[in-house]
């Protein structure tokens, strides 16, 4: 009978340590939250705090007189909840209400939704959509991204 080789991470302390690291890495961004609103198109200009609020409330959809497309996260996303709390002081339900009022008035197209807080997927979508804008915790944004503005608590 073959005895199963013990995994490196099967001892209780190691498992607990792994769980702890997973927990910390999951919530670490929230302790010093900074979100970068970015594009993968280097030609898009830097934007002001007022402009980014107008954009994420669907009040404007233009930058440099060209139509932009927005990416957003799923409703259960940790990024989404924190971003809108900092940027607008609103809950995800309230933000959905604003977007519903626009989309069901024919005044705006809903943002493209990126699944599962996957920043790589957002970056891929932004590379395909040169007038696309998205947001993510600053440390997770790639170096070649064009950061339009950084949003942080207390602004």
């Amino acid at each position, binding site marked *: 009978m073959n005895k199963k080789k013990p995994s490196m991470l099967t001892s209780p302390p190691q498992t607990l340590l792994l769980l702890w690291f997973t927990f910390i890495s999951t919530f670490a961004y929230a302790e010093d939250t900074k979100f970068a609103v970015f594009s993968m198109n280097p030609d898009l200009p830097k934007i002001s705090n007022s*402009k980014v*609020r*107008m954009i994420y409330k669907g009040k*404007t959809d233009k930058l440099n007189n060209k139509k932009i497309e927005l990416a957003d996260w799923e409703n259960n996303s940790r990024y989404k909840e924190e971003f809108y709390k900092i940027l607008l002081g609103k809950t995800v*339900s309230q933000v959905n209400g604003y977007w519903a*009022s626009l*989309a069901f*008035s*024919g005044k705006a197209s*809903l943002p493209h939704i990126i699944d599962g807080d996957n920043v790589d997927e957002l970056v891929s979508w932004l590379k395909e959509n040169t007038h696309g804008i998205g947001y993510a915790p600053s440390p997770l944004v790639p170096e070649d991204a064009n950061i339009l503005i950084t949003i942080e608590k207390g602004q």
Partner: protein
Amino acid sequence: MNFPKHIISSIIALTLTSTPALAAIEITPDFNLSGFGSTSIAKSDNKTPLYLNREITDDTCYDCDTIFGIQLDYDITDDLAASLQWVKRPQDEWSDPEVEWAYLSYDISDLTVRGGRLRLPLFLASQYYYVSQAYYWSRPPQEVYDSIAGITFYDGGDITWKRDLSDELSLSVNPFYGSNRTYSIEITDIKVDIETDLLIGLAMDLSGYDYRFHYAYMRSKYNVNGGDTTTTLNLHSFGYELSWKQFQFMSEVETDSTQTNWYVSTAYNINDFTTYVTYAEGHQAIPSQSITPGVRYDITPTISVNLEYQYENITSNEPFSQGLFVLPPELYSEKKDANLVTFMVNFIF
């Protein structure tokens, strides 16, 4: 009362709102399906049917407010798009919903030109009147929103010019024109036809990220039930909405030659709860007064419930005044006011 339909709509709501986001269902990258709905349990203490198209009485009603809407959006090219919205309104049978809009739109720089069936842009929430998840009330204040017999759409065209005046200010100007059309309204079992032979107007919005001012003008000629008398309506409306910290304020006034109606409303949000109160008055054609405190609870980011109390009162002492009742309460040997309680479920997908 129609309990099975209420159950059916609730099942549809819970099934469809299990999608993870308000993102529409992407059939293809250019073709989206989205939708909305609401349903309620409502009861007043007056036998006289209250509110046009809803007709709530002292008999507990399970489908007086039931709405279900589907919207299809298709981007044909970068500038050309088509949209269709089909709504089972409170007054419709499930088997006979209304096409609330069906249009083609074309973008040319700051202009958008649309043709087909469009929503009347008269009031702040006119264009999403049936999407109760998009406002905090159970129903938009009837003193203002029922002032033109509940008519919500027209067949014709419009142009919208939208411009960012600065980083924090946006202006849109929206002239519209509607061709002649007959609107049928049912009041209890009485059918009323309103025929319009001219409908022309202008809507303007000035918006910052946390506020909006709205003005609209509409001129219309109409007659009722094919009569010889043609009436000219010149309607003005002005409204504002403002979000400040956890507060939200909304107020609107509508005035034409037959009436002046207005409301003020405020809401306060704490996490998933929003409490609100609305005070409204109607004058001349709709002599009424109402106060509506309520609370909304967000079950998920796309599903909410409202519990609302409303006191509605006829303010005229003239006999057979009806205020926002659909018929005079004297016909039912009833008092001139009503206490209404509503429990409503709202959703979007």
